[in-house]
């Protein structure tokens, strides 16, 4: 049964420009805590602006998103209620990430493990998204 919780992430930094060593180059994938967001754009979970002073651009976005985690063997089914992405494990397995819509808000999805999907969402939308997902968990349970 899916469980929703918030995962504390101390710092986040958005890095733009040329890719750096260990940054993922394939779209919609992650390498460790670095998420591909665009052809010249990455989000480093745990990273700090000062560490990327030599990048074209680095922006501290530590407070700009909260991280929710939906875990459990029916996590994908819960999420599929509000997300048009192909969430089958063959398409969205560990190491995949995607920016998309969940219900009526933007989110970055990150497959953190076989049965755990993280949702990075703007804090102002987080209460709404949590409520929506809790309702969806309830819906799948019935």
């Amino acid at each position, binding site marked *: 049964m899916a469980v929703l919780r918030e995962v504390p992430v101390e710092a986040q930094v958005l890095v733009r420009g040329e890719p750096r060593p260990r940054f993922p180059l394939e779209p919609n994938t992650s390498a460790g805590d670095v998420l591909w967001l665009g052809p010249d754009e990455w989000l480093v979970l745990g990273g700090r602006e000062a560490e990327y002073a030599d990048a074209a651009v680095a922006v501290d976005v530590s407070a700009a998103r909260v991280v929710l985690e939906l875990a459990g063997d029916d996590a994908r089914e819960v999420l599929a209620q509000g997300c*048009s992405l192909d969430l089958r494990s063959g398409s969205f397995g560990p190491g995949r990430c995607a920016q998309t819509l969940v219900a009526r808000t*933007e989110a970055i999805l990150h497959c953190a493990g076989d049965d755990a999907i993280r949702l990075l969402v703007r804090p102002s939308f987080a209460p709404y998204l949590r409520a929506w997902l809790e309702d969806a968990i309830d819906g799948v349970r019935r």
Partner: protein
Amino acid sequence: MLIPCPWCGERDELEFSYGGEAGVPYPADPAALTDGEWAAYLFVRANPKGPFRERWVHAHGCRRWFDLTRDTATHEILG
């Protein structure tokens, strides 16, 4: 529709915003244009029935703009 983002692949149209006709550049020297020419830039765009080169942006995804050709009579995406 499924819109092919050049970076993220096919995604549901809900993730995109539309930008109308592609290939209409901002005039190099707007001041040199007549009012009519300026109005044509501001307001007049092609509106064909059939293949149409148009702009989209993956607004809720990677935020990149791109062009594609779509048939406005059938919604088929031609590339």
